[in-house]
């Protein structure tokens, strides 16, 4: 009998997640309710830095419907410890405690000072409004460079400094290389603060069963497993076994839902204290203050090169804004970029150092790309500066510096072992896709005519490391947890499959992608496979979703568990067919006897036998069920070439993206439609980072960009369609050959856009462009280059 099912890996299987999402039947955290539940509302500090002189919750208790209200001090005895950071990057890291509510001092606008519980959302809001909190304002620290100077005002007075840590990395003889290199370019860039702004604000429902002492937290998170262990062990001091964490449908994350939050901590404690379920939904105006911000680095990068532009050394110094406290992985975010300030280029020496600094701003943490967009921005801007210095074309300078092309591992100057890569391949394809020659011709024509609207072309030939991560590497970087992930697969007696996975999606389509892998491995139709995730009770083993790891770590665990299913099924099939295991051939779900292909057993048949257990071979346990935990040996390294063409109106400063080509190599592709969706979404997010989005504080530390209109998340009419293509160079890190695609777009695109803006204006003498490249900034840069007052 021929194989029934065609292979589905590599095909555009329609997402099985979608019917409930498209019809509005999907349930997100804010859609949930429990009988008798109370609504929780936090009172947030309006000040960026102040001593709390008093918090009086008694007026709130007079508001009809309000059931309870607490200030920070009222709950101080509840905490086993502060909200911890899981990434203490150095031994001497300064890590001031942050508790769910402030007690004595607030250090950023939006820090919680009190909490109100009420019978309705409206009553909770009225109650929060009635709380009287009094403050004594303190000096506000905002500027990172000022904050590091002697005698600076302090965010945490008792630390005596605003510096949290300095982390360094050196490969090769950096000083010698810089002393002898004929060309050194030194650049300074500011990567402005971003607000992740997932469309679903964070929300949760906390429940407590007093008789059993059991807590259930349903929360809009990317990391249910990490939330469980951290809340139980460090914040609440309860047995981990008594806390179940569920992530229902989650409306986008981009890193902003990698957190263990004050709200989660408070809701669990208050559910226990009141004996009633507690619901909290962050409204947008508090979400932009309380959900972490991101990026916010000042970068100095130096390249040492030969006269022809061949790079010999890299030297980077960063200041990274931690905000007011260290969050879960905040201090580690710059380290995720630390190895990538050389891009996909060669060289013999590399130095990186980063100082994390406290300011009176919302704390920062991961946001799509986390550390790697910043690194890519620096090197892709700097290599253009080098090209200008040595008089080379941006394409040429990249080609001459690419790492050796290889299907197998190659060391990089940053100290990584890159799994595989053919950098000219993606660049060639991108040049063609964008219509490079035609664009250059148009650029020349417009320059000759002196048109008001000029064209620029910008490149980003990026590489990133993702698939976080080999546990031993995380350990050497002082990350507190491992980087493995897990899957358990059960073939039901009816031949259907349930897969329990430890990664936890928020829009990526894991259920579809993993079903495709399993369908090929087990010969079971995609529709007969159920993927269960986001529940620590059902899928207890997992490290969750961030760092483009779900496929390259979680997906590999799924594949390995399927291999074990086949291994066990082979024993049962051989026994039933009365042949040795070696006499069986296995192709997608079917064992047949070599030379007698009609004598066969399918996986569903074996699953039924394994369930009845009437006739199992010696030593084989009932049930067709297997698990795998996969810890990668190396990262995976997606790379690619993005080319952006912009039109800049030299009279108004307006920048429009004319064309954008993204050619990525993300290794083996399981579902091209899902991959393209990730690329398009990421690229547009990165274009927005380059052109529109910036979190702005005034001099008092008040967040000015506190809504979705003044923080400019782009609408459909603000952004272009992009051209997308791929090359496929399988990863050598894992047997699926997959690399990961969740973050490539935001990593690659900002420098392509800014390089294009600079290129459009280079004939006017513009060499630098701050981001976001708003019309005002662009116009000023033009005036400055012209020597006018700017």
């Amino acid at each position, binding site marked *: 009998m021929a194989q029934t099912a065609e292979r589905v890996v590599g095909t555009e299987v329609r997402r099985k997640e979608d019917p409930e999402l498209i019809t509005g039947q999907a349930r997100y955290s804010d859609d949930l309710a429990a009988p008798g539940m109370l609504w929780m509302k936090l009172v947030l500090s309006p000040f960026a830095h102040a001593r709390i002189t008093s918090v009086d919750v008694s007026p709130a208790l007079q508001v009809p419907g309000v059931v309870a209200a607490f200030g920070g001090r009222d709950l101080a005895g509840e905490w086993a410890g502060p909200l911890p950071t899981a990434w203490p990057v150095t031994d001497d890291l300064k890590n001031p405690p942050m508790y769910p509510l402030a007690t004595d001092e607030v250090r950023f606008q939006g820090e919680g000072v009190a909490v109100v519980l009420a019978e309705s959302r409206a009553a909770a809001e009225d109650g929060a409004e009635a709380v009287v909190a009094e403050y004594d304002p303190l000096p506000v620290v905002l500027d990172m460079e000022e904050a590091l100077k002697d005698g600076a005002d302090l965010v945490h007075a008792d630390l005596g400094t605003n510096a949290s840590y300095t982390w360094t990395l050196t490969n090769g003889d950096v000083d010698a290389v810089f002393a002898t290199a004929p060309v050194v370019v030194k650049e300074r860039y500011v990567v402005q603060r971003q607000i992740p702004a997932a469309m679903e604000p964070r929300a949760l429902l906390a429940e407590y069963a007093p008789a059993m002492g059991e807590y259930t937290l349903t929360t809009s998170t990317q990391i249910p497993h990490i939330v469980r262990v951290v809340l139980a062990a460090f914040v609440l001091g309860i047995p981990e076994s008594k806390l179940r964490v569920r992530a229902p449908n989650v409306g986008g994350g981009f890193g902003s839902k990698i957190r263990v939050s004050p709200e989660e901590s408070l809701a669990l404690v208050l559910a226990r204290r009141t004996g009633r379920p507690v619901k909290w939904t962050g409204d947008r105006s508090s979400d932009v203050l309380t959900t972490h911000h991101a990026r916010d680095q000042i970068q100095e990068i130096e390249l040492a090169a030969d006269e022809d532009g061949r790079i010999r050394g890299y030297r980077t110094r960063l200041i990274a804004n931690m905000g007011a406290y260290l969050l879960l992985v905040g201090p580690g975010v710059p380290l995720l970029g630390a190895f990538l300030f050389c891009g996909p280029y060669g060289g013999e020496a590399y130095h990186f150092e980063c100082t994390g600094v406290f300011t009176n701003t919302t704390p920062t943490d991961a946001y799509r790309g986390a550390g790697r967009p910043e690194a890519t921005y620096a090197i892709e801007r700097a290599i253009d500066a080098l090209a200008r210095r040595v008089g080379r074309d941006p394409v040429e300078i990249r080609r001459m510096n690419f790492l050796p092309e290889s299907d197998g591992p190659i060391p990089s100057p940053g100290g990584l072992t890159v799994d595989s890569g053919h950098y000219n391949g993606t660049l060639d394809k991108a040049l063609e896709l964008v219509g490079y020659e035609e664009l250059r011709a148009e650029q020349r024509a417009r320059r000759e005519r002196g048109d008001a609207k000029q064209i620029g072309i910008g490149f980003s030939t990026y590489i990133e490391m993702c698939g976080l991560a080999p546990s031993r590497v995380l350990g050497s970087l002082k990350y507190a947890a491992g980087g493995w992930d897990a899957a358990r697969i059960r073939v039901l007696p009816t031949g259907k499959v349930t897969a329990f996975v430890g990664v936890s999606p928020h829009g990526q389509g894991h259920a579809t992608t993993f079903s495709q892998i399993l369908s090929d491995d087990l010969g079971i139709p995609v529709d007969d496979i159920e993927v269960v995730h986001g529940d620590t009770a059902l899928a207890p083993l997992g490290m969750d979703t961030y760092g483009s790891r779900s496929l390259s770590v979680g997906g590999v665990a799924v594949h390995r568990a399927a291999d074990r299913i086949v291994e066990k099924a082979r024993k049962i099939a051989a026994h039933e067919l009365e042949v040795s295991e070696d006499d069986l051939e296995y192709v997608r779900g079917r064992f047949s006897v070599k030379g007698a292909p009609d004598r066969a057993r399918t996986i569903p048949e074996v699953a039924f036998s394994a369930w009845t257990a009437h006739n199992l071979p010696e030593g084989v346990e009932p049930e067709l069920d297997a698990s795998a935990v996969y810890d990668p040996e190396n990262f995976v390294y997606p790379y690619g070439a993005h080319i952006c063409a912009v039109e800049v109106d030299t009279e108004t400063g307006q920048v429009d993206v004319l064309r954008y080509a993204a050619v990525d190599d993300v290794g083996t592709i399981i579902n091209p439609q899902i991959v393209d969706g990730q690329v398009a979404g990421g690229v547009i997010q990165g274009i927005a980072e380059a052109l529109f989005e910036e979190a702005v504080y005034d001099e008092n530390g008040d967040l000015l960009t506190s809504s979705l209109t003044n923080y400019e998340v782009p*609408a459909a009419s603000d952004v272009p369609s992009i051209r997308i293509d791929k090359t496929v160079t399988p990863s050598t890190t894992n047997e699926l050959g997959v690399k990961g695609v969740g973050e490539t777009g935001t990593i690659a695109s900002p420098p392509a856009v800014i390089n294009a803006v600079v290129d459009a204006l280079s004939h006017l003498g513009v060499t630098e462009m701050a981001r976001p490249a708003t019309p005002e900034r662009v116009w000023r840069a033009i005036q400055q280059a012209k020597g006018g007052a700017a």
Partner: protein
Amino acid sequence: MLVRTRVNGEWREADVWPGASLLSMLRDDLGLLGTKNACEQGECGSCSAWLDGEVVCSCLVLAAQAEGREVRTVEDLADGDRLHPVQQAFLDAGAVQCGFCTPGMVVAATDLLERDPDPSDEAVREALSGNLCRCTGYQKIVDAVRLAASRAGGGA
């Protein structure tokens, strides 16, 4: 206060506080949770619904304003387990990621195609400009709307 509204073809009653929005009436009182709340400030379109045939941000409309009027929500589009053609096009084009913006997007897209059966890409982007999506970059959403248009016989 008591508000009587015809919702998805059925007369419904809700006892709301005078300041309650149509969005909160739909979600909290009528259990129609498909209409989403991402900002409550009229900035994102995730709460899009029809009021007397016109798409509104239901977070900006008072429940009281819906008294005696006709409201239609995303729940009205599919027919049992048969998706509305616009929903089917979203599924086929891969226009959904986290799905949080999707109900509002589908409402806005359906409304556009009811008015303009063959919109250009620019017209689609313009018509959807009140609906924010953070996941998709809009590309496949535009593809989906064009796909729905072409299936309905409008243009290419």
